[in-house]
């Protein structure tokens, strides 16, 4: 029998394997909300333990080795040293959430309540700084607090939007070195890495939630307008960012090596439910040249496959994603306009790996019956898994409101599709 790593390897080469490999929890866009992780532990008969929040922004829970075994998960993640709020995942302590769950959070997870009872979180865990994230009382995760300083059109300086793109520190490199050594000793699963600094204009990153005082264009609407109204400013940012990314990729590759099978390069969303955030021409002009340089470097110097995340109706852009050198598309939002999995598989399946699309998460997974979920998953696997090139994952993270029975039905569906 082949290992999970070998299974992923084959599928990333768009070959078939003995079964479809499964990712649930290896990245910040293929994860599971901490509430569901605890329920899954109970449903699979694992002993109770408070679950670690490994990604505080979206409150994703750790899917550990025990749960990977119980659910048949094939892929694990190599994560950046610091979280979206700029603190390290270390020195764990208990924390009670709005929904009454006791979870483990790192010491840097410093919060206060505002006058409405909403939870505020602070960059680098520094409560003397202005908060950079807010979790409303009725919510299950944080959203960024935009801290846009007044923009002076005459003195806009791309350097202000480049502050976060610095050379990887010795601590970063040592972190990856240790993580890879541990992985090599203990795991036979596939490995995808999120090493950071390579996403071009990811709207989740633009407000800089890990920074104490972000400068430049940090407001979400302002950034979208900047893409069209200030293209020179954006080119200047992407140019410098790409130079830094190329140096960082080289440094990271030196310590990580070919342990990594796929790299999560960019999570910029180009799709809405029914359309795109920009035209194909804008993508080609503004984004593609920089992606191309990063992807070309990766393909020339490593064995890594490159993972592109973009929500929404991106069908018109997929040809350009391929031209830019991306190997893998995620989350394959199958219910968005034009994203019919049959069509995607036929048109792009010989050139692209689909990592996601295994179950619709806007309707079927949260609101369907377990029977509907299972049948839907079997169909998705048949379509997307034909001739290989498919890693099972939900469309984006499994949210807090998804009934655990439906997640277990999803796992049954995968097993049925795999003939086991």
């Amino acid at each position, binding site marked *: 029998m082949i290992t999970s790593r070998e299974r992923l390897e084959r599928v990333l080469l768009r070959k078939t394997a003995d079964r479809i490999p499964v990712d649930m929890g290896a990245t910040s866009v293929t994860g599971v909300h901490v509430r569901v992780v605890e329920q899954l532990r109970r449903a699979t008969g694992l002993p109770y333990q408070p679950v670690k929040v490994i990604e505080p922004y979206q409150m994703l829970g750790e899917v550990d080795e025990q749960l990977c075994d119980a659910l048949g998960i094939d892929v694990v993640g190599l994560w950046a040293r610091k979280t979206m709020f700029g603190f390290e995942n270390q020195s764990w302590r208990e924390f009670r959430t709005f929904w009454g769950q006791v979870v483990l959070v790192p010491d840097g997870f410093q919060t206060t309540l505002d006058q409405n009872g909403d939870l505020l979180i602070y960059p680098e865990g520094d409560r003397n700084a202005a908060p950079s994230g807010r979790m409303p009382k009725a919510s299950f995760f944080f959203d960024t607090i935009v801290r846009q300083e007044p923009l002076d059109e005459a003195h806009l300086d791309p350097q202000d939007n480049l502050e976060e793109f610095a050379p990887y520190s010795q601590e970063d490199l040592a972190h990856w070195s240790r993580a890879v050594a541990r992985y090599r000793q203990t795991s036979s699963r596939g490995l995808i890495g999120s090493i950071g600094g390579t996403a071009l204009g990811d709207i989740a990153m633009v407000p800089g939630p890990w920074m104490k005082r972000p400068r430049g264009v940090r407001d979400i609407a302002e950034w979208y307008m900047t893409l069209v109204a200030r293209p020179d400013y954006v080119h200047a940012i992407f140019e410098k960012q790409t130079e830094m990314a190329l140096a960082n990729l080289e440094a990271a590759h030196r310590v990580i090596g070919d342990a990594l099978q796929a790299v999560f390069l960019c999570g910029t969303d180009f799709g809405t439910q029914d359309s795109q955030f920009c035209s194909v021409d804008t993508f080609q002009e503004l984004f593609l040249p920089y992606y191309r340089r990063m992807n070309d470097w990766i393909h020339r110097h490593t064995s890594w496959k490159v993972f592109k995340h973009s929500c929404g109706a991106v069908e018109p852009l997929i040809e350009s994603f391929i031209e830019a050198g991306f190997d893998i598309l995620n989350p394959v939002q199958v219910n968005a306009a034009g994203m019919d999995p049959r069509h995607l598989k036929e048109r792009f399946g010989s050139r692209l790996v689909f990592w996601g699309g295994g179950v619709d998460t806007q309707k079927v997974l949260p609101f369907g019956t377990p029977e509907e979920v299972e049948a839907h998953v079997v169909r998705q696997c048949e379509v997307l898994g034909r001739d290989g090139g498919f890693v099972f994952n939900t469309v984006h993270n499994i949210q*807090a409101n998804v009934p655990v029975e439906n997640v277990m039905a999803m796992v049954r569906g995968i097993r049925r599709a795999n003939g086991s």
Partner: protein
Amino acid sequence: MNDILPRLSLCVESGKVNQAAAYPPKMKGQPGADELCREAIAAGVPPAQILEEGLVSGMARIGERFSQGKAFVPEMLLAARAMTAAMAHLRPFFTSGEVKRRGVFVVGTVAGDLHDIGKNIVAMMVEGAGWEVVDLGVDVKAERFLAEIEKHPGCVVGLSALLTTTMVNMEKIVADIRARHPALNVFVGGAPVNQEFCKRIGASFYSPDPQGVVERLKTLAA
């Protein structure tokens, strides 16, 4: 001077805010929505005509292009910015009653949800279609909507949700509104929302895009 309203309309559609704005490059150095609206008022063009033929028509054209996939979120935001610059000059005429709005649209993103780009675009389009918009922002609870409905009898309410986890709050808010105002027009929208959900929770109307909201409002105001 005869062509001032078509020019204003083009500025709104193209996102040309004012003369100093560098965008769009092909209109560089030309007067924008700000200057042209001021000029039209000074020239004695009736404000209602400025609103209709300058602002509403420009926003309608960008809205149609957006619906057809020929314009995108950034272009919509830029058009709305130009529209807002012009609208500022018309506000005194709304206050004085010289220009009547078509109605009041109370809009907000539902409790627990902080996403507002889609809601903002709808709000701007509706304002650009001649309605008074009361934007309650994000994370809005039922009580807040109910309080605004009391202040604006006969208003239309718009609820937005981007998350499957907050659709349940949308359902509760619609139920609370319906308990007191069974006949009120309550519109719903947002990425995971669809016609089926709209019907199930007892909302009046769903549109996948802002232009659909504007078209529906036209039928109500007519």
